[in-house]
């Protein structure tokens, strides 16, 4: 329990750092955001009074540290400010899209695991045999293929030619499958190789012989005794991959024209919609920190030798 508290405390420190950096970057961007925004809004050079009015209205004339404190205070209360272009709350904009992005991220991780775990195990058990060689080549191709390129490929084949799935947009499961495959394949390739290596190492351990010497069926030896041990390093990597998945989601959402944080962020950056940019980055950071915390806590279940937070001798 004290470990969880400790981890939460460090998470707060990390998020504080993220907020500082995000805020700092936005404010270090050259040019007057107010002027840029007004040009975008109205399409013509604004008068200096209009700029000044806008700055005053948005609180841009306050000292920088006041602005930061205001923003952080708001963020802690769930208020991330308002979009410059509509009256919409940034937090509600994000919430609308967060679901879509998380859906894509989780789906692509599932795709990766469904492909990678059985392939990796089969590869390890049949080391050096055709199934192993095939999966190794497959992994090499998977890891080398850029996800946006695979995305277009999938659209051309399965959406345009075969008409099996919609080309773009969001909605039910049929909208999710192609983006999830496009995003999950690269991760599947990495995880396959990891499962294979990890499994090969575990299969050589003496406790696997112990399990066999009890008269257990080979299937149970592999899927109960070996797999649980082999998954420990895999969980670490999958947890870290979540960051890359969020990253990749930005690209994939554009390829498939899916609403989501990626599209929201890119649009906001082009429009200099700073409250939205800050909000999205902060939410992404929170997601990443929380998922890593969950990964660390899951170790305790997977590997009882790990005593979280207790000093190792």
């Amino acid at each position, binding site marked *: 329990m004290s470990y969880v508290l400790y981890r939460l405390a460090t998470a707060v420190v990390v998020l504080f750092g993220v907020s500082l950096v995000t805020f700092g970057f936005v404010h270090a961007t050259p040019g007057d955001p107010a002027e840029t925004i007004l040009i975008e809004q109205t399409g013509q050079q604004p008068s200096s009074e209009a700029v000044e009015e806008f700055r005053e209205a948005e609180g841009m004339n306050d000292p920088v540290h006041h602005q930061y404190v205001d923003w952080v205070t708001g963020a802690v209360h769930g208020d991330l400010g308002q979009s410059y272009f509509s009256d919409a709350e940034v937090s509600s904009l994000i919430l609308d899209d967060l679901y879509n992005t998380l859906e894509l991220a989780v789906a692509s991780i599932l795709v990766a695991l469904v492909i990678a775990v059985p392939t990796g195990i089969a590869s390890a058990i049949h080391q050096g045999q055709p199934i192993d060689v095939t999966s190794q080549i497959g992994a090499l191709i998977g890891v080398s293929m850029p996800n946006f390129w695979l995305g277009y490929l999938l659209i051309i084949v399965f959406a345009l030619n075969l008409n099996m799935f919609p080309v773009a947009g969001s909605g039910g499961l049929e909208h999710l499958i192609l983006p999830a495959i496009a995003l999950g394949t690269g991760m599947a390739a990495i995880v396959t190789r990891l499962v294979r290596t990890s499994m090969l190492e575990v299969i050589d351990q*003496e*406790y696997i012989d*112990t399990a066999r*010497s009890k*008269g257990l069926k080979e299937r149970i030896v592999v899927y109960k*005794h070996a797999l649980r041990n082999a998954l420990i390093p895999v969980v670490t990597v999958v947890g870290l991959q979540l960051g890359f998945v969020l990253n990749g989601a930005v690209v994939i959402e554009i390829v498939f024209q899916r609403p989501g944080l990626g599209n929201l962020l890119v649009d906001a950056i082009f429009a200099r919609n700073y409250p939205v940019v800050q909000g999205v980055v902060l939410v992404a950071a929170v997601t990443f920190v929380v998922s890593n915390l969950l990964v660390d806590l899951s170790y305790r279940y997977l590997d009882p030798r790990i005593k979280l937070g207790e000093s190792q*001798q």
Partner: protein
Amino acid sequence: MSDPLLSVENLHTQFRTPEGPVNAVNGATFTVEAGEIVGLVGESGSGKSVTARSIMGLESPGEIVEGDIVFDSVDLTEAPEATRRRARGTSMSMVFQDPNTSLNPVFDVGEQIAESLKIHESPDSQSLLDYLHVPLVSDRREWQEHRKRAIELMEQVGIADADDRVGHYPHEFSGGMRQRAMLAIALAAQPELLIADEPTTALDTTTQARILDRIRDLRDAFDTAVLLITHDLGVVAETCDRVVVLYGGEVMESGPVERVLSDPQHPYTQGLLDCLPRRSDRGSPLPAIEGSVLDSGNSTPGCPFASRCEYATEACRVSDPPTIRPERSRRVVCGELDTVRQDAESERNAAQPRVDGGDRSIERASQERHEADVQTSGTIGKDGTGRASGWENPESRSDDTTVESETPLLEIDGVSKTFDVTGSRLERVFGQRQLLGAVDEISFRIDAGETVGLVGESGSGKSTLASVIAGLESPTEGEVRFDGATVGTVEERTPEQLSEFGFVFQNPTESLNPRMTVRETLAEPLRERNWETEQQDRRIAELLELVGLSSKHAARRPHELSGGQLQRVAIARAIALEPSVVILDEPVSALDVSIQAKILNLLLELQERLGLTYLVISHDLEVVHHIADRVLVMYLGKVMERGPANALFESPAHPYTEALFEAIPTLEDDGTAQPLSGAIPSPVDPPDGCVFHTRCPMAEEQCRREEPSFETIAGSHSRCHFAEDVTEEPAEPTIEPDNP
């Protein structure tokens, strides 16, 4: 006569290697009767483990290419995999060597035992989902039943608080407890045959004695047959009914234990018996079997031992030796048995006047023969014997009191070492610290040229003390003085001081960098002292010669060398900078007896030639007895007894020392000695008074309250209130229940 339970007939198990197929087992033939304990002995590489695995059906990646394994009248070599699996689950079990690696770290011990029980009950209906405890699919009630039975089994193998311990994971158990858990897993199948592959090699002697006890008890209770694989002939003598001696994957000799060990017929069996330190005089070179186990047990005819056998003739090398039955139930596979016997006979006659007690004369005679051989032909002989004669008067050597005036080479003055094992950060912040006292105010001195032995069970603080002396750990209190000057940790020592210490670790495969060649390993300390390349090369050649390796070994990497050769390299590295003190932490406990003998000989020879001072740490009292002048017995970080080796070994003046002796399996033992009960208490919370009182057979009220000071008894110093009683009457060890 009914069929034996297990009959192995002309077994050949083959491994494919890049150099072609190798027969690890090459025609082994032996039987195991129901209720019999059979010892399978031989050096590493003689095919013991592969034989055991072949019986269990775990020989993969090897392959049984010839021969039969008939178990319960079924030939397992021809049976389908399902039959073999069912045999494993229901009628044969195996205990592996290293309990640290043979239990699955992610399942609790109860689960691992329960699984075994469940397989035994229904070996053919194993469903993955059931075994994964998937809710609804899995029969929870049945698993709970098995878990309850698991607790009973844990109690049966001597795990206290089984109710509580059933949910613990392997890493929460001590080594000995893990091996008991492993034993419980094996026994859950109610096997007719239990195969134990070096079950006690990774454990210290007191724990070993108790595990072997359990195995004997279980045989008595359930009439289980046991195939006990070991390289320790003492274990065989104490535990087994019959012994099978394996070499090169073939049986050299087999027969009843007392006959084979008292009257070994095969030259290899004789060699194995001669290497044991306990059979030779202190400090004299041990007879060793020349050469090493062949890498490839190839399938060419001829006796596999011929290349190392002093009796070998041309016939031995080209044709298979005959099997001779010198008496009923004994078999010896040797072509020159008549010569071997004649030789033994003539020596027995020659040796007769000097031998007291007739039945051991042959062993002594053969030992003398070996010694004679070594003296005339070996490189060790002259130095070793010269030294041995000087050792016969232990009184002339250092006794603590006689040399007090001079400055000792090494002085350990009131050294304590505590570790902070406080559990959580919060407790640390609030100052609730838990301290583990690994070493507690130890003082002693080592004079130039002597050997001090440090003995005690695992967890007694021996290795921590050695690390402090070597400067790898800093003492919490006290100091280490070398040549009168205080030396701190490695960082604080001057290059000169650093080069005065050499360190040899237990396991050479782990202490040598696998990526470095022998030359690079040896050059490293030299380079550190800025030796010229030319000087380095000369020194490396010299070092290799000193440790009995040749220049061709210089370019090899650790995986290309055998265990004995690796330890030689480790020793060469330790002496590279001509240190005056070499600290040896369990230098031979990872090695086979025959190699152990050679390494001990080498250490004695080097000491003689280079005037080295040794600090030898070992849990093997025979090894310490063999090479040490003075001995310190440690328990829970404190010295319990110290004194000259002879006095201490002849009449121990502390009950703990005595208990350690009791635990050693010896060839003469019949398994009646009572091993020390209980485990070492936690050093975080050591007992009050005398730290040993919780396990001491002599403990009285006084021991619980007062910590004893050192008493001087017959040249030894003993930290015991009743030291005099210990030496006077050999204490009758009381029988106590296992209570870890």
